[in-house]
């Protein structure tokens, strides 16, 4: 992983106020990125279970897709989200959540990205996202 890519990813995450609001961070093992969303009380959407808000999960998955794109194309401006489909597989409990993104296609203008989120076990996904993103020229 080259330093420019990691620096670009770090800049992207540090500069976005909403990323700090969620409390999200990323971890890198070589070029494999895992996004981490530590539990925080303000992320709860269902106080009875309790479970994280569906919007929080959707936002976390979308930010993971954008972070993965930023890592792949450090010189470019942050892509714009065109559309996302979020599938909720089971309640996301009040605990730390993880996500990884796969860049299924990165074209000249459009990228198709798939993201999966889990908690205790990678085999027990809590949610998935597929999205299209508009790639923008170099900054």
């Amino acid at each position, binding site marked *: 992983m080259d330093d420019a890519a990691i620096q670009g990813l770090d800049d992207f995450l540090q*500069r*976005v*106020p*909403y990323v*700090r*609001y*969620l409390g999200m961070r990323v971890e890198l093992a070589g070029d494999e990125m895992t996004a981490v969303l530590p539990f925080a*009380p*303000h*992320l*709860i*959407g*269902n*106080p*009875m279970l309790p479970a*994280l*808000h*569906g*919007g*929080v999960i*959707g*936002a*976390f998955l*979308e*930010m993971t897709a954008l972070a993965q794109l930023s890592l792949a194309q450090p010189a470019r401006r*942050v892509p*714009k*989200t*065109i*559309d*996302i*489909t*979020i*599938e*909720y597989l089971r*309640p996301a409990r009040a605990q730390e959540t993880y996500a990884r993104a796969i860049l299924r296609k990165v074209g000249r203008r459009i990228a198709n990205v798939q993201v999966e989120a889990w908690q205790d076990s990678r085999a027990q996904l809590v949610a998935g996202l597929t999205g299209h993103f508009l790639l923008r020229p170099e900054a």
Partner: protein
Amino acid sequence: MRMSDSYDTATLAARMTEYVPHALALGLKLVAVGQGRGTMTVAWREDLVGDPDTGVIASGVVTALIDHTCGLAINAAFDLPAPIATLDLRIDYLRAAAPRTGVTCEAFGYKTTRSIGFVRAEAWDVDRGDLIATAQAAFMINPRS
């Protein structure tokens, strides 16, 4: 959160806002509710910005607002509070919201069965006729039963 009231007896407006920590944290407000439909809004705030260069609210906030308003519309289709769970949510982002501007969402449950609710939603920043996002969602009703 008003601990003296139970969730079941609280008004729908209260159940959609003050009883939900994330709705409270984002400052989601209920604007209107009718049979199978509802409108909610979120005000612009510095810590909810997604693009620091422009000051535009994060799409994640719009996602949460849409998800929540769709849930309101499903709840508003029933007389009693029913537990619900989002199955899927598709959002088209038509354009970025205006800088330093909040977002409003109206959702309409156009079909509910005993187990599933189908909802469409639209979101705008300034003008109801100039949308920033449209959405379609399916909800499971009484997921535990």
